[in-house]
Structure formats: structure tokens, C-alpha cells
């Protein structure tokens, strides 16, 4: 009897634990049917903050729960979510963080387990579109007055629409493209600081002039320290008609444009103008330390570092010892005409969207806006960045931890942002930043975030062949690849457009004309 009892208990325990493990959320039932933003708001304040919030009145008053899945700075997102819940007490926001390296895998697993979050961040557009994760938010986006204030290229180039008439994504994190110049290096080398409206050719000339291998202090000076590749920058800077990497004009690619930049970048390497990379023998020979970073040597004139490097590294106390005078320059345009005015320039933008599983798209859109481009959200962010007592897991103020820039052009937000960003700077340096921020608002994101089929193309063709390596090493010329690479890029793009948005797809939003265009493009480039 005892045996039987033990066995029965074993079975029961196992079944119970299985049921608990495999149990699914029963769902929230109901769901909202709103398809647009009414624009009506009421002013509310929250305890402990001076910000006056504009609470949307067309949101549900039922108690609901929304899930926000992201790879952003976690403390920042949690802070914003808490504030959102204070403004909308009936909406409970659950924030889920996942490291970017395992982000897509985890998201797909959640989708597979029917636990799809309501709002998600993403960077690989092909992943999000091929799995139909994003829902059409055009209804909300088009009727929302705040979207008119976004950086001009977002609406003009329909970034986030992926070549369709529907909107699937909005920019969540915006890191404008920037060229950092170390004025102290220029002073040491007796080189005049470049014009603020510099051209691409002037930049290349500066790199060459600032490379002095036999310097009097015994350590060579290099023209450029590389983090981001210059060919990506050139691909956008070449013309104002370009809407994406590899010379993408909204429909077609033209890699002959990219090839010029790629070759120029490779020539800088073979010509010895590029500072050694970290963890190389060249670095050890040059800086005396295998793990040294060119940005801390004080012997590099120009950097293609990311936007966050300034606040995250150079502006920190630890870097005051290196005697650097880093100032921002806008990524130069190739033509003088473009360079003389605000122009398209590359930017790192992470996107976000509402998922197709979301039962409360109107409320989810409001959450997405608050977390990304919304004025209320940005005011909250700035308040948080100003409070240096709020720190990340390493004890660093959140301002120094991958802080983005506002993608809205709202003047109040920008004024507060610049004050916060330039806190502690002298007027000259603040002037540099003000000038830079005023000129960086025509961002064009990297291809994998904004062009359908781009990542598949890179994954299965461009990177597989190893074009960058072949050209950088001098083994091949970039121009040798231009034609074939253009054909392949167009093929992958057309294929993706038909698969994601064509008549047999889950979205099925292409017009007959668009379908014919992509079918023809696919046929023409299929060999």
C-alpha cells in the first residue's frame, strides 16, 4: 500500500509540475478597438516631479496589463515604465529585459509559447517582419500630432514603413552619426581645425595630414581611429536622394556609390592612416599595451566612434587624465552643396513596434511613444538623467550609460536635453554641441533596421563572401563587386518585399503595382 501511495504521489507531483510549467496565460480577454489617436489630453502631475504630463483621454479605463520587451538600458526603461504607470494607474506595465545577443532568440521563443509581449524593441527588421511580429500602427501614427515633430527623414523617407504604405515601427533609440575631432592633436600638429560645414574630401585630407608616423615625441600620430566603418557613412553622405545603406533609394540599391567609400576606407588602412585596433600586435608596438584603445592615446585626430562614446567614456572623470579635447562634427556630405546645409547622415536607430498579438494596440502605442519619441517620455528621461543619484548596476549615472538623443524636434525637449548634456562644459564646447545637434536631425538608419531583405542579403551574400576583408586587405577592389553586389541586394530586397508584404504573405499590403514592380525586380536580378 505504501509503495502504491508513494508511486501515486510521484505521478501527481510530476503531472502538477508539468501542468504548472506548461501552463499558459489565460489572456486578458476583451481588447480595445480604437484605431486612431484622438489627440485629446488632460494635464496631470505626479508626485515628486515638476513635469506636467499630457494624459491621453482616449485610452481604456479598464485595468489592463501591457508587456514591454526590450534590450535598452534597463534602469532607464524601468524608470519610464514606473512613471507611465503613475500617469495611467489602470495600466500595469511589465518590463522584460533581454541582452541584445540573445534578444531575437528569446523573443521568438516567447512568440512560440504564445507569450508575445505587447510592445517590443528590435534591430533586425527581417527577423521582425518575416515572423509578422509587428502590427500596422498607421492609424495611430498618422493621427498623432507628435509624430509630425519627428526628425524629418523619418516621415519623408518613410523609415519604419519598409517600402509599404503602412507603418510598422517607430524609432525608439536614436544615436546620431558623429565624427569626433581631438582639437589638442590638431594643435600639436599645427593643423587648423576643419570648417564646421566640412566636406568628405576635407575630412579625408585631414586624416592624411594628421598622420605623422615619425613624430618628435616618439609615438606616431594617426589620422583616424575606427569604430564604425567609413564606407557606411559614405554610402549615405554621397547624395541627398539616398535613403539607406548601399545606395538604397527607397526601391533599388546601387553599390557603385558604396564602392567608392569602401575603397577609400581600405586605402586609408593600406596607406597607414588608420590607428591600430585594440588587441593587435600593432597596438602593442604603438601604445605599448595590447589592450590599449586609440581613443585614450591622445595621438589620433579623428574618431568614427559611436554617439554614446562621448558621455559614456570621454566625458567621465576617468578620462580627464588623457588631455583630450574632443569636439563633435557632423558626418560630412560628399558634395559641397549638401555640406553647406543640413543633410542626410547615418545614425544608429533601434526601432520598436506594437505586436500583432497585442489586445490593446491604442494603449500599447501610447506606451511605445512614451518609451521612444514622446515629449512626455523625453521630459521624464531628461529629469532622470539630471538626477545623478539614479545609477546603473555599475554605479554609473544613467547619463553615462548609452544615453540616446531625442528623435523629436520639439524645442523644449531639445533645450532641456542640451542643458543636461552640456552640464559642466564651457561655452565654447557647449557651442560645438549645440551646432552639432542642430545639424544631425536628418538621420538615415543602418540598413538592417530599415530595409526589408537587407540582413538576409548581408548574411547570405555580402558577409559570407567577406567583401570587407577582401577589400581591406587589398586583395580585391571594391568596384569589382559593385555590379554583382547590386544585383544580389536588389534580388534579396524584392524577394523579402514579396514574402513579407506580397499577396501570399501574412501582411498582404502591397498594391498591385508594387507587387508587379517587385516581381519584375526579382526576375531581373535572380541570376
Amino acid at each position, binding site marked *: 500500500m505504501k*509503495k*502504491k501511495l*508513494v*508511486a*501515486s504521489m*510521484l*505521478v501527481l507531483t*510530476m*503531472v502538477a509540475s*508539468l501542468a504548472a510549467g506548461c501552463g499558459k496565460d489565460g489572456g486578458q480577454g476583451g481588447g480595445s478597438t480604437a484605431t486612431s489617436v484622438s489627440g485629446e489630453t488632460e494635464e496631470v502631475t505626479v508626485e515628486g516631479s515638476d513635469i506636467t504630463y499630457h494624459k491621453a483621454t482616449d485610452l481604456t479605463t479598464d485595468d489592463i496589463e501591457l508587456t514591454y520587451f526590450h534590450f535598452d538600458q534597463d534602469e532607464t526603461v524601468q524608470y519610464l515604465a514606473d512613471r507611465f504607470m503613475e500617469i495611467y494607474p489602470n495600466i500595469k506595465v511589465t518590463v522584460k529585459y533581454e541582452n541584445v545577443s540573445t534578444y*531575437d*532568440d528569446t523573443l*521568438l521563443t516567447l*512568440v*512560440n509559447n*504564445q507569450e*508575445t509581449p505587447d510592445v517590443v524593441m528590435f534591430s*533586425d*527588421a*527581417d*527577423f*521582425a*517582419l*518575416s*515572423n*509578422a*511580429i509587428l502590427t500596422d500602427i498607421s492609424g495611430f501614427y498618422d493621427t498623432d500630432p507628435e509624430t509630425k515633430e519627428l526628425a524629418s527623414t523619418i516621415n519623408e523617407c518613410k523609415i519604419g514603413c519598409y517600402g509599404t504604405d503602412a507603418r510598422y515601427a517607430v524609432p525608439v533609440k536614436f544615436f546620431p552619426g558623429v565624427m569626433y575631432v581631438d582639437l589638442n592633436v590638431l594643435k600639436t600638429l599645427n593643423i587648423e581645425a576643419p570648417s564646421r560645414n566640412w566636406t568628405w574630401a576635407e575630412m579625408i585630407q585631414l586624416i592624411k595630414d594628421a598622420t605623422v608616423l615619425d613624430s618628435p615625441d616618439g609615438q606616431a600620430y594617426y589620422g583616424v581611429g575606427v569604430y564604425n566603418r567609413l564606407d557606411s557613412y559614405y554610402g549615405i553622405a554621397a547624395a541627398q536622394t539616398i535613403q539607406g545603406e548601399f545606395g538604397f533609394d527607397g526601391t533599388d540599391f546601387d553599390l557603385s556609390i558604396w564602392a567608392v567609400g569602401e575603397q577609400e576606407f581600405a586605402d586609408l588602412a593600406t596607406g597607414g592612416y588608420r590607428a591600430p585596433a585594440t588587441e593587435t600586435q600593432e597596438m602593442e608596438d604603438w601604445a605599448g599595451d595590447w589592450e590599449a584603445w586609440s581613443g585614450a592615446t591622445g595621438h589620433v585626430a579623428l574618431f568614427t566612434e559611436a554617439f554614446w562614446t562621448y558621455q559614456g567614456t570621454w566625458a567621465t572623470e576617468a578620462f580627464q587624465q588623457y588631455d583630450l579635447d574632443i569636439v563633435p562634427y557632423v558626418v560630412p556630405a560628399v558634395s559641397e552643396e549638401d555640406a553647406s546645409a543640413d543633410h542626410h547622415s547615418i545614425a544608429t536607430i533601434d526601432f520598436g513596434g506594437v*505586436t*500583432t*498579438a497585442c489586445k490593446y494596440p491604442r494603449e500599447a502605442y501610447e506606451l511605445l511613444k512614451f518609451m521612444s519619441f514622446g515629449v512626455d517620455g523625453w521630459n521624464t528621461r531628461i529629469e532622470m538623467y539630471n538626477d545623478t543619484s539614479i545609477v546603473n548596476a555599475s554605479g554609473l549615472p544613467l547619463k553615462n550609460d548609452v544615453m540616446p538623443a531625442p528623435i523629436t524636434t520639439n524645442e523644449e525637449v531639445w533645450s532641456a536635453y542640451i542643458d543636461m548634456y552640456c552640464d559642466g562644459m564651457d561655452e565654447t564646447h557647449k557651442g560645438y554641441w549645440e551646432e552639432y545637434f542642430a545639424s544631425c536631425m536628418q538621420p538615415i538608419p543602418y540598413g538592417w533596421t530599415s530595409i526589408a531583405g537587407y*540582413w*538576409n542579403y548581408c*548574411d*547570405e551574400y555580402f558577409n559570407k563572401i567577406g567583401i570587407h576583408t577582401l577589400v581591406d586587405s587589398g586583395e580585391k577592389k571594391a568596384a569589382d563587386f559593385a555590379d554583382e553586389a547590386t544585383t544580389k541586394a536588389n534580388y534579396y530586397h524584392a*524577394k*523579402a518585399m514579396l*514574402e513579407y508584404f506580397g499577396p501570399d504573405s*501574412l501582411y498582404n499590403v502591397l498594391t498591385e503595382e508594387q507587387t508587379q514592380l517587385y516581381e519584375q525586380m526579382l526576375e531581373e536580378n535572380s541570376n
Partner: protein
Amino acid sequence: MSKMTKQEKKNRKRVKPGRLARREAITGLLFISPWIVGACIFLAYPLITSFWYALNNIRITPMGKSFTFVGHGNFTQIIMSDPDFPTQMIDYITSTILSVPIIVVFALIIAMMLNENIKGKGFFRLIFFLPVIIVSGPILGMLTQQGAGSITAIDTQAISGAIESFLPHALAEPISELFENMITILWYSGVQILIFLSALQKIDRSMYEAAKIDGGSGWECFWKITLPTVKPMILLNCVYTVVFISNNDQNAIIELIKGAMFSGTREKGYGYASAMAWMYSVVVVLIVCIFAVLLLARKDVYERQIRKYKKQVRKEKRLAKKIGRRSARNAKKIQKARQKRGYKTYDGSGDY
């Protein structure tokens, strides 16, 4: 024992088990039911599902999974148009076949050393088992990235050069890689050392004493006593090592399968990854079979001699029986011939 008649068999079937027997059977079933349920849910169901996935193109969307039946399309595509998978597979096969013997032999040597009467035996055992804890997860990846996978004192470049000078490149490359990742390979031997150690500790010491009295050297004791005793564990360790290497975080094919699983490309996804996983599983099973065949077929000298002797004895017995039967037949023939008087001897007397 006489065979049962049909009627007996029929009658036997009709006998119902007693209540006690039934109770025991149910209790037994209940006890193993967690395993049965677990195996059905976590083994059989995923296996069948993944095979079904392998025959389909699958997209996972928040609205549910969309399946398009492609038959063997995924398998064909992997072989015909994915250059990475076959290349990685060949690399995996060669490196596994080369590294498994090294790991097992190393584990045996260390286990024998740890089995000796030395001071701080427990501490040394701990040291050799520690990597099992450390190498799990991403830590090994980080260590390998830092160059901790190779022995710095060894000039791997020189070894690679020397190997390539007398071996074809295809064979020299995996052998060179072995030297480059020597530490990693040796780290994989923690569990195997423990298995060997447990087998070594079960060997009766008196066997060694007896062998020593008969003049057996240490070398002979190893070949005649130690190795035959731990031989079943060699196969076990080989299987364990193959499985460990095949499912390791550092395994490039696992990375490839994971990459395909979460790929945005429409042709890839769960179906494509499942097809890859099935092909990979078949290869892993084949490698296990190769080791099993090699190790099961090999008997040690003593056993081989005994088997040979037994075979010889059986052969002789069969021959003796054959001769006996032939003699009996001939005797009968002669008897008959005698009776008929049709048989004559050379001298014509009829007597033999």
C-alpha cells in the same frame, strides 16, 4: 525441456494472474510512469515534432505557426545550397574522431595516477574535476577567446608546420587544431576520469599481487589486468565524450542550427533547423556506432586465445562427430553389403 503443446499454451494463456501479481504490476507501472510520461513528453513527442518540422517550412508568428509542407526540401537545400553545414560537419567529424581517443586515453592515465596511494589524493581529484564545473556555459567560450585553450609553452605554429610537411593538408589541419586546443580537450576529461577511477577501484588488489608473485611487470599487469577490467568503461567514456562534444556550447554546428532556427530568411527557421538537427543526429549516432564497433569487436589477447581455443575444441568435436557419423554410416553399409554378400574384400574373403 520438452516443448509445450498447443493445448498447453492455450491453457496457459487462460490462467489469470493473481490479485497480488496484478497489484505488483500496477505498482511497478506507477513507479516507472514518471519516466514513461517524461520520455513520451520530453523525448518521443519532441522527436516526432522535430521530424515533422523538418518536412515543413515554418514561420512563427504571434498569430500562430504557419506550416508549408516541403517534403525533403529542407534536407536538399542544406546539402545543395548551404555551404556552411557540410563544411562544418566534415570538420566536426574529423575533430571528434581525433579528439575522443585523446580525451579517453588522457582520462585513463590520470585516473590511474589518481588511483595510486599518494598524499592529497582527494585534492588532486578535485583539481581534475573542477573544469567540469568551469567549462560549462559561456565561461569556456570566454577563456578560449582569451587564448586559454592552448598550451602557451608549446609552439603550436612549429608543430602545425611540422605536421603539414608530411601529412596532406586535409588531415594535418584537424591534427594541428588538436594541439592548438589542447587545454580545452584535456578539460573535457573530468567526468571520464571519475568513471575510470570508479572502475579501477573495483579491481581486486589480490590479482595484482598474484601477478607480481608470478613475475608480472607493471606493464604486463596493465595489459592483462587493468585494461581488460576497465574496457567496458572505455566504450562508455567514448560514448559520453562524443555526446559531450556534440552538444557542447563551443560546437559550431549547434551554433549553425540555432542561427538557422532564429533566422529571418524565409527558407530557414524551425523547419530548416530541424532538418539540420536530424542530419546532425544521424552523424552523431554513426560516430557512436563507429566507436562501439571498434571497441566491442576488440577483445584482449587472453580472451582472444580462450575464444580461439574454444573454437578449436568445438571444431574438433564437430569433426569427431562427423567422423563418428560417417563411420556409423559406413558400418551400416558394410553390414548391408555383407548381408547381401555383395561386398568383397581385396582378397575375396569378404572379411575386413
